[in-house]
């Protein structure tokens, strides 16, 4: 086991040399999290828009549920998906357990409530502002939702990036349904957990640094987008 200084030096060495294993893990992490994010946005944004614009019995209960699901424990999500996809589970015939697809499913379940609940809030505020004008113009319901999603795009991108932050940093669900299999389902967070337990700190540190850089990049991107949107009065 190395001391902290030499572990850092080795970690930078791995990054500088574009180590193949390291790149593979980073690539899979990004593929899984971005695909989960895309799926979550496709489900969560229309769901958020629907709850934001429609009045129906039980709407408050749906909102409370959506907010509560934002705090879903990843290990519980992992366990539920595991039970569905395991050989004896209802979806066992699909043979998805311990594949990147299973990890994408678990992360999609994890971040969809975040996208739906946060976008609901954003779109409801926008809808409050626009609703009389929309009514006056006789805007059909579908066009109304499309307009809200388009006009709220910069804020919704922030929402999406919050979901991405949650998925890329998550370990509990992906380790249960992915199994952390080398060259197949090993992502940054599961690799960090494994390498740390093995005492191989350089790879864990290198991956940790990449995660930090991604987190920083995501926040910088959010900041730049918000600034640009505010500057051009599209926010």
């Amino acid at each position: 086991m190395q001391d902290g200084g030499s572990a850092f030096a080795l970690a930078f060495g791995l990054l500088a040399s574009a180590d193949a294993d390291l790149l593979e893990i980073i690539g899979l992490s990004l593929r899984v999290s971005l695909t989960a994010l895309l799926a979550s946005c496709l489900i969560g944004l229309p769901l958020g828009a629907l709850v934001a614009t429609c009045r129906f019995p039980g709407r408050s209960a749906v909102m409370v549920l959506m907010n509560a699901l934002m705090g879903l424990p990843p290990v519980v999500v992992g366990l539920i998906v595991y039970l569905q996809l395991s050989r004896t589970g209802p979806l066992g015939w699909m043979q998805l357990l311990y594949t990147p697809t299973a990890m994408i499913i678990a992360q999609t379940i994890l971040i969809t409530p975040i996208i739906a609940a946060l976008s609901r809030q954003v779109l409801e505020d926008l809808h409050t502002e626009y609703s009389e004008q929309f009514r006056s113009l006789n805007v059909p319901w579908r066009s109304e939702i499309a307009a809200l999603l388009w006009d709220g795009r910069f804020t919704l991108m922030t929402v999406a990036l919050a979901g991405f932050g949650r998925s890329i940093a998550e370990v509990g669900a992906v380790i249960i349904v992915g199994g952390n299999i080398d060259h197949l389902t090993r992502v940054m967070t599961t690799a960090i957990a494994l390498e740390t337990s093995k005492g191989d700190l350089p790879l864990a540190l290198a991956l940790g640094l990449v995660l930090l850089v991604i987190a920083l990049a995501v926040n910088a991107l959010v900041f730049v987008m918000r600034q640009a949107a505010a500057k051009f009065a599209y926010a």
Partner: protein
Amino acid sequence: MPECTAKTNALMPLEVSGLNLDLAGQLLIDGIDLTISEPGVTVIMGYNGAGKSLLLRLLHGLISQTSGTILWAGQTQSNAVRQRQAMVFQSPVLLRRSVSANIDFALKVRGQLDAAWRDELLELVGLADLSARPARLLSGGEQQRLSLARALSCRPDVLLLDEPTANLDPASVAVIEDILKSACAEGVKIIFVTHDIGQAKRLGDEIVFLHQGKVAEQSAAEAFFTHPTSQVAQAYLEGRIVV
């Protein structure tokens, strides 16, 4: 000043009878009976809280009355009727898009996207040079002109305006008044809420004076400003406060 034409208007006359609006136990519109049949500009005036904006929203069907009827050329409010009306609000509600995209949105909703008509409207309201600019970066007067252009883009028979020039500079007020006179000359019926007595004198052909949710007086503009028949309208014109 272009004269308002007596061209046949598909939504006239407007007949309101026994109109009540009760919100949280408060009767905010109290049994209004009103007929508007003349072309031109009908100005709704009254003190703050008289129910002017509520009446306009009721007429446009943005809120529902507790009881009573509103008939536009004998028809109750519906999407088809509202399709022939347009409303301009006191605070312009503009989409987070460019100036031209705001008008395109209104046209597209009706399946009538027409770039030439949009450009003509932007020319009319003096915003042709700003068509690519984000709408929300316009000045207050420009935003209201854009709202007006968007409202006119639908070629309405009736244009409802809720204090559209409140808080605007005199130059913007003059531009908006000119646009309204032009619309009126084209045969558009204008129903206009304002606090501004000078503006009501400049634009109004007919005045409806509201007080505490009731019509206190309805008369031709000239008669209203020279010989108001109700005491409350008289006090209003003299600048006295009525509690």
